């Protein structure tokens, strides 16, 4: 052992008297390394703890979100989705109410009133419930249905459209109903709570 120590000292060109200093340096570096290890250990501990807390919060938020989504599905969607289908079925019935290319004003008013009545029923039976769960979803769905009602009202009241013509009907009415329908369902099924 002493031989090894001497060899190292020769190799590093260190005088015998200086060995003490080397030992002090070694001790010092040991202390510094131990201190850094302690800091690193403490940092890892704090970091991990924060991460765990964050993860717990996220799990709790997701749990609440899932419960809310489940309730939304069970209380509103499952029992009430038929009302949405019924609304669009009813709106599609306006084709049968268009008896000719030149409807008089009373006939037009009757069709427009029919659309507005159906919209009002959908609002009272379905949209108002959604409003209690999520106001943004309610606004999006309401805007969609308003847009459909307004588009159909504009088209039906306009003398220029010959709605008995199949192509005109499909372009001005059917396509708008289909677009509104798919957008309505898409908004419901993409709702994530």
């Amino acid at each position, binding site marked *: 052992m002493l031989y090894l120590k001497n060899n190292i000292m020769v190799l590093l060109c260190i005088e015998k008297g200086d060995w003490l200093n080397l030992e002090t340096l070694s001790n010092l570096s040991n202390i510094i390394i131990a201190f850094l290890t302690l800091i690193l250990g403490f940092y890892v501990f704090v970091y991990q703890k924060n991460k765990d807390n964050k993860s717990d919060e996220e799990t709790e938020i997701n749990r609440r979100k899932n419960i809310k989504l489940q309730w939304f599905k069970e209380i509103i969607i499952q029992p009430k989705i038929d009302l949405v289908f019924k609304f669009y079925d009813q709106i599609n019935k306006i084709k049968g109410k268009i008896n000719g290319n030149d409807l008089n*004003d*009373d006939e*037009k*008013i009757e069709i*427009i*009133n029919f659309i*507005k*009545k159906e*919209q*009002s029923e959908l*609002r009272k039976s379905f949209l*108002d419930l959604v*409003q*209690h769960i999520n*106001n943004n979803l*309610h606004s999006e769905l309401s*805007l969609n249905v*308003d847009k459909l*009602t*307004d588009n159909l*009202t*504009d088209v039906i*009241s306009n003398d220029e459209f010959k709605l008995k013509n199949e192509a005109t009907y499909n372009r001005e009415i059917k396509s708008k109903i289909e677009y509104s329908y798919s957008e309505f369902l898409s908004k419901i099924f993409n709702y994530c709570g």
Partner: protein
Amino acid sequence: MNKASIDLENHRTKGSKVFTGRERGISVRKNTKIDVLVKENEQVEIIIPTDIMSINPSFLEEFLTNVVKSLGKEDFYKKVKFSSDSTRYDIALDLEEAVDRILRNENALSKK
């Protein structure tokens, strides 16, 4: 009694027999200054052109939103009167729908 009137004839789209859309409602609300008229007068009369076929709730909701919110349902019906010579279009149901929607939205927002 102070009384003001708004003739919707002056605010309709040329050739159209209907009032539809939220944007149109906002635009007519601003142009008619209905919010100020209701504040400054005891009664406001809104005249519906004779040949009108429909005033949709989407339009009415935006047109009347501030007035209904500030007056409440009862006072609104007392203070704001709709008149028309038309025998074929009755605004009652559309108005009721719009007022109901405005008050529901207000309640939903206040719960937040």
